[in-house]
């Protein structure tokens, strides 16, 4: 059952991620990215991260992607026009892609030869209670710095967006 769920949602994530890269229209890319994030939320649940799965759906798929789609619609962004790829891109890009992937996979398999098997329910410390306890004791300073970062981001976004340019 774990294997079936993993394979189904991993393939959904990969297909949607490929779609993000190959679609020429930004709206199609954005909707595919929402698919990736939903599939990843299910995988987080399988890994026992229930709070992070909910935060993924609410913050990423809910807030950030709505902001993206809002900007795409506001700018009325059309499809990217195709231009001929240079020969160097074709010669270097595609082997580079598979080379980087093979390097990462090799490093993973070498570094973790005795990794545990993942069972649903094998790790139950990802609840909101545990996250909250760690967040407000061990990571309290990081949490406060985060609030400062958010404040700076709000001010920066407002200043950038309402600047009258002539």
């Amino acid at each position, binding site marked *: 059952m774990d294997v079936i769920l993993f394979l189904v949602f991993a393939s959904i994530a990969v297909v949607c991620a490929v779609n993000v890269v190959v679609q020429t229209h930004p709206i199609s890319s954005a909707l595919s*990215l929402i698919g990736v994030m939903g599939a990843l939320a299910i995988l987080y649940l399988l890994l026992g991260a229930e709070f992070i799965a909910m935060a993924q759906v609410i913050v990423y798929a809910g807030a950030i992607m709505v902001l993206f789609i809002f*900007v795409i619609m506001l700018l009325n962004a059309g499809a990217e026009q195709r231009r001929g790829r240079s020969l160097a891109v074709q010669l270097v890009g595609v082997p580079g892609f598979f080379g980087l992937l093979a390097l990462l996979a090799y490093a993973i398999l070498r570094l973790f030869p005795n990794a545990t098997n993942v069972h649903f329910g094998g790790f139950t410390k990802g609840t909101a209670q545990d996250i909250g306890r*760690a967040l407000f004791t061990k990571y309290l300073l990081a949490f406060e710095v985060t609030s400062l970062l958010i404040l700076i981001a709000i001010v920066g976004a407002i200043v950038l967006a309402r600047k009258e340019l002539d």
Partner: protein
Amino acid sequence: MTGVPLSWYLILSALLFVLGVAGFLFRRNIITIFMSIELMLNAVNLSFISFSYQLKQVDGHLFTFFVMVVAAAESAVGLAIILTVFKNRNTLDVDEVNSMKN
């Protein structure tokens, strides 16, 4: 004893990251490039959650939480920059926005 090996999750994460890198390098629309960055952040988050499962500690979840917060702040500022660029240049193509060149 059935179950998915943890390395499958890590390889999925690597695959998503490499797809994000490819989108970042090959696309020309600035919004799509920005979405590729979000894809890479998501791939790294999956790695953090997998390591958290392996080590039976909750710290990886906290890192993922902070990455989400930083991504939210980053997308707010980044999209404001994209709006300003579009107002000035009337284009979203990154090849057209090269006034810093030379």
